[in-house]
Every structure is written in structure tokens, then in C-alpha cells.
């Protein structure tokens, strides 16, 4: 599914990712944990094609395609999704229309016919039910005036609609109260299947109480320093990152 080899990424002249490598298979859930400044969010932004993140060297393949040769939109159309740590507010753009346009953009690239608003409504309703999201979300402008928790849930709704091959959740748990955390985690579990993969980026073990990863990686100073099973997160919770 995803293969990252010897990736070096620079931001504002500083090297943040240094010889970063990771392989994620289909149907797998990986968690990356690490202290502030380890480069976790840089990894998410660089993979999703943010123009401020300079790829110095390395290779990234998604389903056999060279991800680094594509711009952010093409990466999304290929099946990459990033849930933002700080989702952006887009005043004046209706959330339902936005979701439909994004859905259709992806279909168009895949050579499929676009769906009209009526057809999309049916698709949307199913996802809202699955994620237990209130219909009032749709009438509002994208993230505009949303609370922190609502923004994160709107990210998950977008993820559900776009049905990515690989979803990167960049600190989706931060800023969420325990109930919102559970709702978001249940949504991720509902969307999980053998064809898609997830990369969870988090500081805290608590998210992993709800979403059980296949692998936990410890990231320090721009690279992975240890990989283990889900239980590694419990060790980190107890001992912190000082030992790395």
C-alpha cells in the first residue's frame, strides 16, 4: 500500500525528517507516537503534498505510484487522505456542496460519472448514520464556527465520503473530550476494512484504547527509533519518551 524509503524533508531550512522509512500494508493500522518536535506532523504534511515541505530526497509509493511526483490534489484523487490537526474554516462554502464536489472530483479522475445532488444525498445520509453525525452539519459552511470537536468529526465525515486507500489522522484526538474521542474512534473502526489503511499520529495512548493498531512506531528526531505491537503504546504511556 504505502512505502516510504529514506525520506528527508526540510521545512524553513531545517531538516525535520531524516532518513525516515516505513511500510504500511493493506488493511493495516499503524500508530506513530513521539514527543513534540519529532516530525510527526511534518510527515503528514509532506505525504499529503504541502508546498512548504521540501522533499530533499527519498521515495514514497502509494499503490505502486510515485507519490512525490504528484501535487496535493492528485495525491488525494489517488486515495490519500489527511485529517488535519487544525482543519481550516471556509466561510461561504456550504458543507454538503463541498463534500459533493470533492466526491465528484475523485470520481471524475477515476473515469466514473459524477453524481447529482439527489444521488449524493443518499450516499451522504448513510455516512451520517454510520458516523452518528447530525444533519445540521451539512447546512453550515465548511468548518466555519465549528467547535474543535465538530471540526474533527467533519474531517472524519470527509474521510468517509472520500473513502481513501490510506488515511493519515494527524493528532485527530488532540483537543477532543472523551465522548468526542470515542465517537471519532468508533467512526474510524466502522470505516476500517481489509482494503484500506490508517496511519494514526498521536501523542497519547488513550486514542489507542479505542482504535487498536497493528503496529506502534516511536518517532524521535525525524525517524522511527522503535517499532512494536499495540502494547508498546502502554509502555510509552508509563515510561515516556526519555529513554529514546
Amino acid at each position, binding site marked *: 500500500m504505502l512505502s516510504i524509503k529514506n525520506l528527508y524533508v526540510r521545512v524553513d531550512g531545517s531538516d525535520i525528517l531524516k532518513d525516515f522509512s516505513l511500510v504500511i500494508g493493506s488493511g493495516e493500522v499503524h500508530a506513530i507516537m513521539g514527543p513534540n518536535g519529532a516530525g510527526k506532523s511534518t510527515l503528514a504534511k509532506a505525504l499529503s503534498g504541502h508546498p512548504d515541505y521540501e522533499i530533499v530526497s527519498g521515495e514514497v509509493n502509494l499503490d505502486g505510484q510515485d507519490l512525490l511526483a504528484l501535487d496535493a490534489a492528485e495525491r488525494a484523487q489517488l486515495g490519500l487522505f489527511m485529517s488535519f490537526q487544525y482543519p481550516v474554516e471556509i*466561510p461561504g462554502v456550504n458543507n454538503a456542496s463541498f463534500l459533493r464536489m470533492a466526491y465528484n*472530483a475523485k470520481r471524475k479522475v477515476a473515469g466514473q460519472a459524477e453524481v447529482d445532488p439527489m444521488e449524493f444525498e443518499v450516499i451522504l445520509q448513510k455516512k451520517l448514520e454510520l458516523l452518528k453525525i447530525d444533519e445540521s452539519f451539512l447546512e453550515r459552511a465548511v468548518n466555519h464556527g465549528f467547535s474543535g470537536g465538530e471540526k474533527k468529526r467533519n474531517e472524519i465525515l470527509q474521510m468517509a465520503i472520500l473513502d481513501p486507500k490510506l488515511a493519515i489522522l494527524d493528532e485527530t484526538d488532540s483537543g477532543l473530550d472523551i465522548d468526542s474521542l470515542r465517537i471519532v474512534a468508533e467512526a474510524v473502526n466502522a470505516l476500517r476494512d481489509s482494503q484500506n489503511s490508517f496511519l494514526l499520529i498521536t501523542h497519547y495512548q488513550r486514542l489507542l484504547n479505542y482504535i487498536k493498531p497493528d503496529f506502534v512506531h516511536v518517532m524521535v528526531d525525524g525517524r522511527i527509533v522503535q517499532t512494536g505491537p499495540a502494547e508498546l503504546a502502554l509502555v510509552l504511556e508509563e515510561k515516556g519518551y526519555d529513554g529514546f
Partner: protein
Amino acid sequence: MMVSSLPRVIQATDSLSHDVDLAANEKSTLVVVQEDQGTSETPQIVSIVGSLHAGAELTICVISLGEIVGSVLVDVTFLGEEARCELSGLSLVSGKTHLKLITSMHHDVPSCFSRQTFKYVVSDHALTEHEGKVHVKQHAQLTDSAQSNQSLLLSPDARVITRPQLEIYADDVKAAHGASIGQLDSEAVFYLQSRGFSLEAAKRLLLEGFVSEILDQLPEGCDEIKQQVLERLV
């Protein structure tokens, strides 16, 4: 110049001067659209003068599209209490535009309401200037006025000058004003791209969102004008 029944829509191809004198409780809506002047080098002057008696309601929207050299003058005087004026404007200007707006709300009597809401999308070498005035006389207590100017600059040579001016002699009034000038938010562009929108589609969607506040306020029967505006966003 084209004038139709309510709302009154004026397609201003030349200079025009329009007086609106509203009797007590009368309501009127006026939409003025000015588009590219073509080869004409004569500055276009659009002048609207409103007088509002008690309880009257005047809604004015001025839409400026393309390359325009000229001025828009809107001067509204409140002569009777509880009158209301909502003035809005949208300028999508380009080329060598030099557009100057001078808008004035004269609150001569108490308890009147005025709003001035303007959005500018400025590209190429275009320049817009806006002086938005609110004048509140000493006995015009309980005046409720606000003005907001938001501008997006789409090119390095585009310029916007905005000057909100408040002249208030009464002590129990609301008079809000705000202005912002910026570029398209690059994080918002990236956000949309990360959802599969091409760079061009992302920028267009952000612009649509930006202008929607003004377009949504247009009265019924203005679908053609909305279309005209949306076509300009490409």
C-alpha cells in the same frame, strides 16, 4: 441603461445619476451593475442619492465587474425615525481599473439603521479606493450603524485603499467598522487541494465563498446577475 420592475436593476454602461426619495414606510431595492467600459476612456460616474422618511427601507447593491475607471457615489440621508438602509457592494475588478467609491450615511434623526458591506476582489494592476462615511448628528441618538470592507488582492500589483470615517456627535449610538485586506489563504487552498480540488478549482471555490455573503443578500430576480459574477471568478 436597463430598468425593470422590482427589484430595480440598472445595468450602468454610462454615467448615471439616480435619486431615490422614499416616503414614510416605503420600501425600495436598487441593484446597479457596472461592467467593462470597453474602449471608452471617459470616467464612469454612478451617483445615487437617497432620502428616507420615517420607517422607509432602502436596499442598494452596487456590483462592479471587469475593467472600470470611475467613481461610485452613494449618499443617503435619514430624515425620519426608524428608517433603514442596507448598502452593499461587490467589485471584481481587473486590468487598469481605478474605481473610487464614496459612500455616506447621514444620520440626521434618531433611531435609524445603516449597514455598509463591501467586498473587493482585485487583480492585475487594478486599484480600488473606498471612503465609507457615517455621520451622526448630535440628536440622532440610538443610531445603529456598521460598515465592513473586505478585500482580496489576487496579484502583486493590485491595490486597495480603504478609509472608514466616522463622525459622531451623539453619545448613545452603535457605530461599528472593520476592514481587512489580504490574499487567498494558502492554508485554505492546500486544505481544498488535499480533498482533491485542483489548484484552480480550490481558488475558485474560496472566491465563491468570499463573494457569497454579498450574492446571498441580493433580492429575488437577480439570478442573471449572480451568474454574471460567478462567470467572472474563473
